[in-house]
């Protein structure tokens, strides 16, 4: 689900993410933000799971690559219905990810003038996972 209002290379974006019900809270579903989102085959994904895990991966010409390992994060409130504020800052080629004002990890990427999107994915058989996002805020990258 893309934000169509701008395609910033550098930015600071914040969103509240509410975890859905999941049969497999760690690995059954993930949600977060797509950044430098040219299309579904070319984008970076910063995601979290209902188990309080977060990391990042990318698709480059539809090829998957891990850019920051998915790890349990103490600053994420885990569990169904828990809400966490995810923040992603992109400046130059540096991306920094925060949750609830705590730095989680950083990685280097290839900046693109492309969309920012809300991301969710499910691998849970016939179960539907409903990810809820609130309080979207996009600002200029920090000086």
């Amino acid at each position, binding site marked *: 689900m*893309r934000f*169509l209002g701008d395609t910033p290379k550098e930015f600071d974006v914040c969103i509240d993410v509410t975890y859905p019900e999941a049969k497999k809270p760690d690995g059954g579903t993930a949600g977060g933000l797509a950044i430098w989102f040219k299309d579904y085959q070319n984008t970076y994904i910063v995601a979290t799971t209902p188990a309080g895990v977060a990391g990042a991966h990318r698709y480059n010409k539809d090829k998957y690559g891990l850019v920051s390992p998915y790890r349990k994060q103490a600053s994420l409130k885990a569990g169904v219905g828990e809400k966490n504020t995810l923040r992603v800052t992109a400046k130059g080629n540096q991306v920094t990810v925060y949750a609830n004002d705590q730095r989680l990890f950083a990685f280097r990427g290839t900046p693109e003038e492309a969309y920012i999107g809300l991301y969710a994915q499910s691998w849970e058989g016939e179960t539907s996972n409903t990810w809820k996002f609130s309080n979207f805020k996009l600002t200029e990258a920090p*000086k």
Partner: protein
Amino acid sequence: MMLRTIAGAMLALAIAGGPALACKGDEIFSDDFADDSGPWDSTQFSTIAGGYAELKLDAAIWA
């Protein structure tokens, strides 16, 4: 002094409770998702209303 302390505490609470406290720079856009009038593309998996953008997914799909 007491009043000042209480006011300070309330301000601190208000700041701490802000949903997007971290994004402090010049605002490009914000959305409280009260309705679907914002510049978002819609998919069969997405809805915007009542303060939330929702992505409801079946298996092996991302949106």
